[in-house]
């Protein structure tokens, strides 16, 4: 039925028109004003006219797809007004992707502009989602998205070195571009990038990287390859790293890549007495799919919960961890322990000011269906997402 409808010429023309109107709206009005307009005009009719703007959720629309290398594609996404401007290095979680539109994956933003964000995805032939994105996803598709989050962001250090491998280039690429875009810092800071790819053909953003290095004197880029033809003798990448950046101990290192690669680099850093306080490592802790959750049935058996609890507040875009020792506290108290302010009133489950909805995970105590009262509900699973 829906397919039939989408083939009707009128609907196609409408979709075409919207694809022009949406970027224009977000650029000229800005997300804040668009939110004001859309939230006050949303109803059953407007939701049908344009479900991208008149919606309660954060959505992104694919507006361009670029082939980066043979097995890497960049998807330029236009987020709707519920999105807020990300910080370079952060990631988003897409929650309605894959063949059944129910998979969720985190992607670091590789490019950030005023109105768009990009994700760069490497094809993993054995995976479920990346082949779908590479072969099925097309311009015009809309996905549900989280707001941008993550703490792997630049924090004003003067000398920085990004060490990355494979698709781990994405946060480094967006952070470097962001640093160079800030005019006051673009020449002041020293930026290093050590990037290990498989082959020159496989190097994501290779053309951009060459341009960056030639255009900016303070940028030093060193490329390293893991799968060159056997007749070329290459030094170990650790040797290459230490030769290229002898003053690594004076720099702040951002590390992102596959686990084995990360371990090798950390081992090297330890061996040269690098101060590990100057190291940021990107580790995705979020993509826990719903069937992997350690859920405990409701009731008051909260003492059964083992380990820390990761809590995400979607609307506030805050992510925090309740240490295992705090799991007998209410969600509100536990959040306050972490310095996080949640809306609340009576603190005893009477007034309903703190009421919010559970997106995934389990709580025990005061709740009605998926609506929970953080002031009198306790964590009952290790992974909780609240609206």
């Amino acid at each position, binding site marked *: 039925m829906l397919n039939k409808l989408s083939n009707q010429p009128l609907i196609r023309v409408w979709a075409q028109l919207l694809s022009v109107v949406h970027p224009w709206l977000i650029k000229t009005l800005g997300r804040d004003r668009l939110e004001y307009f859309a939230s*006050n005009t949303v109803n059953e009719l407007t939701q049908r006219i344009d479900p991208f703007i008149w919606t309660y959720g954060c959505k992104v629309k694919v507006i361009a797809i670029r082939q980066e290398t043979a097995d890497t594609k960049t998807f330029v996404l236009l987020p709707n007004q519920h999105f807020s401007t990300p910080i370079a290095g952060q990631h988003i979680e897409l929650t309605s992707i894959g063949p059944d539109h129910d998979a969720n994956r985190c992607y670091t933003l590789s490019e950030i502009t005023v109105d768009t964000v990009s994700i760069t995805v490497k094809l993993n032939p054995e995976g479920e989602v990346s082949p779908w994105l590479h072969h099925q996803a097309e311009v015009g598709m809309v996905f549900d998205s989280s707001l941008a989050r993550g703490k792997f962001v630049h924090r004003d250090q003067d000398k920085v070195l990004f060490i990355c491998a494979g698709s781990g280039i994405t946060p480094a690429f967006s952070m470097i571009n962001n640093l160079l875009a800030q005019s006051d810092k673009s020449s002041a800071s020293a930026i290093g990038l050590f990037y290990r790819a498989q082959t020159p053909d496989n190097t994501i953003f290779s053309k951009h990287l060459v341009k960056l290095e030639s255009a900016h004197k303070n940028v030093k880029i060193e490329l390293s390859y893991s799968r060159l033809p056997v007749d070329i003798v290459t030094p170990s990448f650790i040797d290459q790293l230490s030769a290229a950046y002898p003053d690594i101990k004076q720099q702040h290192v951002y590390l992102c890549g596959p686990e084995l690669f990360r371990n090798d680099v950390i081992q090297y850093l330890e061996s040269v007495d690098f101060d590990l306080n100057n190291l940021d490592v990107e580790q995705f802790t979020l993509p826990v799919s719903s069937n992997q959750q350690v859920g405990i049935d409701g009731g008051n058996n909260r003492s059964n919960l083992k380990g820390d609890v990761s809590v995400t507040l979607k609307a506030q875009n805050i992510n925090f961890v309740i240490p295992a020792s705090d799991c007998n506290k209410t969600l509100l108290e536990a959040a306050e322990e972490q310095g996080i302010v949640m*809306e609340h*009133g009576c603190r005893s489950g009477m007034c309903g000011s703190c009421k919010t*909805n559970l997106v995934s995970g389990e709580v025990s105590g005061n709740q009605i269906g998926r609506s929970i009262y953080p002031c009198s509900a306790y964590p009952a699973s290790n992974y909780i997402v609240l609206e």
Partner: protein
Amino acid sequence: MNQPASNPSGTVDDYEEIHQAFEQIKQKYRADLGEKDIRYIKKIRRNSRIFEVIGRSLIHILPGPFALVGVPFLFLHRNLEAIEIGHNVLHGQYDSFDEIPQFHAKNFRWKAPVDETSWRQEHNAVHHVHTNVYEKDPDLNHGFLRVNSQVPHTKLHYFQVPIYLFLFYPFMLYNFNAQNLGVVDKFRKKYFPEGNKGYAVVDEALRLSKAEGQKRHKRAVRRVWAKEYVFFPLLALLSGFGAIKVFLANLLVDVINSYWIALTIQATHFTEPLQPEDAIKNKGKWYVSQLDSSVNFKGNRWQSILWGHLNYQVEHHLFPDIPAHRYPDIAVDVQAVCKQYNLPYKCNDSWRAAIKKFVGAMWTYSFKNPAVPIKTAFLDKAAYIDKEAANAK
């Protein structure tokens, strides 16, 4: 247990029993939430839309004073949206239903000139928690109102009845923002000899930043003005009908709606007795303090919808986030508990009687030392168990 629980000799155990009794009612109605509530709120929204179309068309088309025929319809629309839908939805009464995201407190936008976020912080998290608590409940004596003898008297209070009835109530909805923005606090600080003594002031820590609050307030007002006083008058002008007529009719609806809401909410809170600050620390005590500071007035189901079920203020204050259309049923259970524990259950015979009492209190306390010890007189007349309703079920 025959002791009235509002009696200070009530022991902790009495309060625990009372707490459990009300908790049981709460759980009973929570368990029953479902399809019925979704149907109800959707039906109200549908009717509100129908009234809007009828009202706006009549006002648009009918010439001159005949356009007044459309005013009641448009009023029905604005009123349903403001209280039966808006107020109740913003309490999170429909949050637990996935099917209707448009009626979730955080998604909902009022068709009233009030910013939802600041209002929810003031109303849900302060007024409903500290009802009738001296210097804590901002709604007890909003603006410069003086309705109990603890509040210091100033010359302005001699004029509070006409000022409220003729100046403030016609624009009541617009006053909510002033309170949340702290405008009134500043006024009292500047012009009252004892400043904000006796009044609840905005708790800065709980509120939005000043700039954010002001931005939201402006937007909340502008969305109403843009629709009522720009878009529809302009539409009339462009289609060859009278723009001024539409403007005036919409203004009239705005004023009637504000007045209606003002009289509804003012008539359903007792201004005395003041409640202890620590009531919220004990759930049983808190339930009793809510009973003690709220008052119902009688009306049938249809009327109750137009009052946003706020004529069941007692039930609303006991269970603020249970869908309001259930209050008439809940009232029967609440009355039974009140009877059993000899708790106050206050109910006026009619809206008229309730308004009369409230305006009476306003008049009395406009004088520095009221001659009548109003406290007892005020309570004895109104405090009785609504036996008729209890027997009817």
